[in-house]
């Protein structure tokens, strides 16, 4: 049994069949990559996992519980954190304040009224946040306005915000999209370190094969809404079906 089990998921948008009979099993403490050409349904699948979309049929089980019908914040509370394609952070807040929000959500749940005690008095949370910032080499930016940072820093901050919650599953949506090579490599190093130092499962959607083959323990190839193959990275590389799917896209 994997920590994330997707069974027979179908999703239609009007006449377009975005996902058909998707089955996927992500094992605990692995990095599982989902690749596929444009329009293969990767983002749709991801959105079905985090509560943004509800599949027409099928089931999505996380940690033995169904996520279907739950709102994004409930799914996060179950232990799934998500990194977006373009970094989504709280641009109006400082880096440190950005870090406090996920910690509050983790400790207090989806809603708790803490209107009187100062945020500065949350010593435990502040310490955890500082430690996390140290881990991602951002501690010197703690008082910076996050909107004014570089895109790479925003990505790192977003990753830190997800990791600080100690999620069981981290979902990454093309974490290196639009990045320069150097930044991409930094991100790969960061993810490798995370993988090495934490008990965490990572599901990653990616275009960049370099990233995928540096990180993934298992790979699922999606084409036209259906999983083509699921296998170890070394077996995927020369797989004829995969080549066909990608070449098919090129034509």
């Amino acid at each position, binding site marked *: 049994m994997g920590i994330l089990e997707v069974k027979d998921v179908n999703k239609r948008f009007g006449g377009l069949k975005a996902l058909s009979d998707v089955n996927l099993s992500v094992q605990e403490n692995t990095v599982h990559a989902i690749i596929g050409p444009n329009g293969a349904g990767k983002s749709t699948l991801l959105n079905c996992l*985090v509560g943004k979309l509800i599949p027409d049929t099928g089931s999505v089980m996380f940690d033995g519980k169904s996520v279907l019908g739950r*709102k*994004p*914040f409930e799914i*996060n*509370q179950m232990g799934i*954190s*998500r990194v*977006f394609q373009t970094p*989504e*952070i*709280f*641009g*109006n*807040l*400082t880096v440190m*304040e950005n870090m*406090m*929000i*996920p910690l*509050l*959500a*983790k400790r*207090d*749940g*989806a*809603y708790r*009224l*803490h*209107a*009187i*005690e*100062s*945020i*500065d*008095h*949350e010593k435990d949370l502040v310490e955890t946040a500082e430690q996390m910032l140290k881990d991602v080499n951002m501690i010197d930016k703690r*008082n910076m*306005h996050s909107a004014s940072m570089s895109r790479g820093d925003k990505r790192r901050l977003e990753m830190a*915000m997800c990791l600080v*919650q100690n999620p069981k599953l981290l979902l990454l949506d093309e974490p290196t999209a639009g990045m320069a090579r150097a930044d991409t490599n930094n991100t790969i190093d960061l993810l490798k370190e995370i993988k090495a130092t934490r008990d965490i499962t990572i599901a990653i959607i990616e275009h960049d094969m370099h990233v995928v083959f540096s990180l993934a323990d298992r790979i699922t190839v999606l084409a036209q809404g259906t999983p083509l193959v699921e296998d170890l990275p070394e077996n995927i590389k020369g797989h004829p079906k995969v080549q066909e799917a990608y070449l098919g896209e090129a034509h």
Partner: protein
Amino acid sequence: MLGLNKKDFSLLIVVAALAFFAPIILNIFPKDSALSFFNGGYPDLMQRFAIFGIFAIGFNILFGLTGYLSFGHAAFLGVGSYAAVWMFKLLSYNVVPAIILSVIVAALFSVVIGYVSLRRSGIYFSILTLAFAEMSYRLAYSVLTPLTNGETGLQVYTNDPQILKGDGPSVPHLFGLEMRARTELDIGPWEFTFPVGYYLCAVILVISFYIAIRIFRSPFGLTLRAIKSNQNRLRYTGMNPKPYMLTAFVISGMYAGLAGGLLAAMDPLAGAERMQWTASGEVVIMTILGGAGTLIGPILGAGTIKYLENVFSKMNEGLLHQWFSFLPDFMEDGVIWVVSKFTGEGWHLMLGALFMIVIIFLPGGLIEGGQRLMNAIGMGKKKDEQSNSAKSEPAE
């Protein structure tokens, strides 16, 4: 101190000192001097400073922190006033139960209106709040007259029950201390008035301000700012923005109700015109003029508007002739012609123009203006960074 950091504490002290010494500061010009015209230290105006300051502080908790622009907050002020006057009618002129009930009633109203309006965001939210407020206003004037006494306004009549009145005073009072009682102090050419009603408002203003600081600095306040910044991220971070928004909405509604209750406590009369959308627009203007999202901005904005309203609207042509009599005749007439367009009855023109100038050039309001001024003269360069993160968070 008081759970505040040093900077916030000094801000609180400044506000408390200003509130406490307002009767002196605002009457700084000797009473026989020509400048005494600019004195604002009379009870009615000072009470308005404090009451609308409270209203704006509360509005800022919603608008300044979350960015949700409500165009219907005057409705809560209005129901607060009605609730207070009903307490006067039923119980006694003691202001304590009146103010408590006005806050409670406003809270109930804001739960209902907030719950519905917050299902939408952006301009849709603004229109929903506007629609609710206009409905309240129109019904208060007509169908609900048995509750509101229509355009005459709700007031206390001698045949009202007032079951707890006994021998108590026939004017609003705080356990016997009449709101309109005052002490006057003459020092040489100066004359100062210290009204009881004002001091009640001032004390409540300082407490309200203190609570607002705590809210701003709390995890709740941070969450509200996160809502303004990126609701999507917040949802995927495990928080449910809806109840936070509703809480903020209700808190600001309670502030508005408190302000309404105090208005009634100063003058036991409640009218529907307090609920009109233009009245809601006024608190928006106050908050933005001062600086939305800053702590002290809304109080400044409320004070500025109420002061200008009083001072500019009472400048008439005779007075202007007096002032500009030093100019040669042809210039005098020209200057007066221009100035008179902006004063007296034309003061709204002044308000509109001032408001436009602030929005265009100072999106952060007067607070931003002050900061820029400080920077320009080389002061507060160092403070800037600090205040950016701690204090000022411009409208967007």
